[in-house]
């Protein structure tokens, strides 16, 4: 997945990449594994500059699923720093660009939450629930949004 040109571009643009290898960097692998409770490979974490984990990807994913997960992590980081307008835009990018990915339903849910946080307008949640009737209606995120109807 890290040989895919789009993944390389995304990783280079949005992250500072660090690799710890189970055998080649055993000491760092063990110490960071304990720190982040990561004891399986591949595990990919997106960590903010304060050292807080913002997203976790466990197990192999092909590039067309891995890339949306990275984008979801960047959106989560924006939400965590309470930049809700940016978070909504980033979550909607995941839905728009990677509509068929596993990350898309989760992104649609959090885009609605981000809009609600930014505007304090309950219509954001209602609209999101209605959007799930059109797309991703069988996802667990549609169930979670169903209370907003």
């Amino acid at each position, binding site marked *: 997945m*890290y*040989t895919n*040109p789009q993944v*390389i*571009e995304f*990783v*280079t643009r*949005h*992250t*500072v*990449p*660090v*690799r*710890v*290898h*189970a*055998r*080649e*960097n055993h000491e*760092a*692998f063990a110490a*960071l*594994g304990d720190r*982040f409770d*990561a004891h*399986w*490979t*591949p*595990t*990919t*974490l*997106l*960590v*903010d*500059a304060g*050292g807080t984990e*913002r997203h976790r990807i466990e197990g192999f994913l092909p590039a067309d699923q891995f890339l949306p997960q*990275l984008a979801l*992590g*960047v959106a989560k*980081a924006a939400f965590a720093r309470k930049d809700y307008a940016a978070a909504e835009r980033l979550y909607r990018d995941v839905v728009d660009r990677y509509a068929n990915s596993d990350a898309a339903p989760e992104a649609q849910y959090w885009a609605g939450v981000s809009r609600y946080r930014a505007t304090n307008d309950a219509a954001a949640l209602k609209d999101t629930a209605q959007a799930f009737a059109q797309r991703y209606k069988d996802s667990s995120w549609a169930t979670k949004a169903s209370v907003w109807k």
Partner: protein
Amino acid sequence: MPEEIRWGRDFETALRAAGDKLVLLDFSAAPM
């Protein structure tokens, strides 16, 4: 744009360099 990812090896150095970016921490056992 680079043709491959330039992996760092030191997490703390990456955190200090991150700024507005996120640190991507990859736990790997793949052949290097």
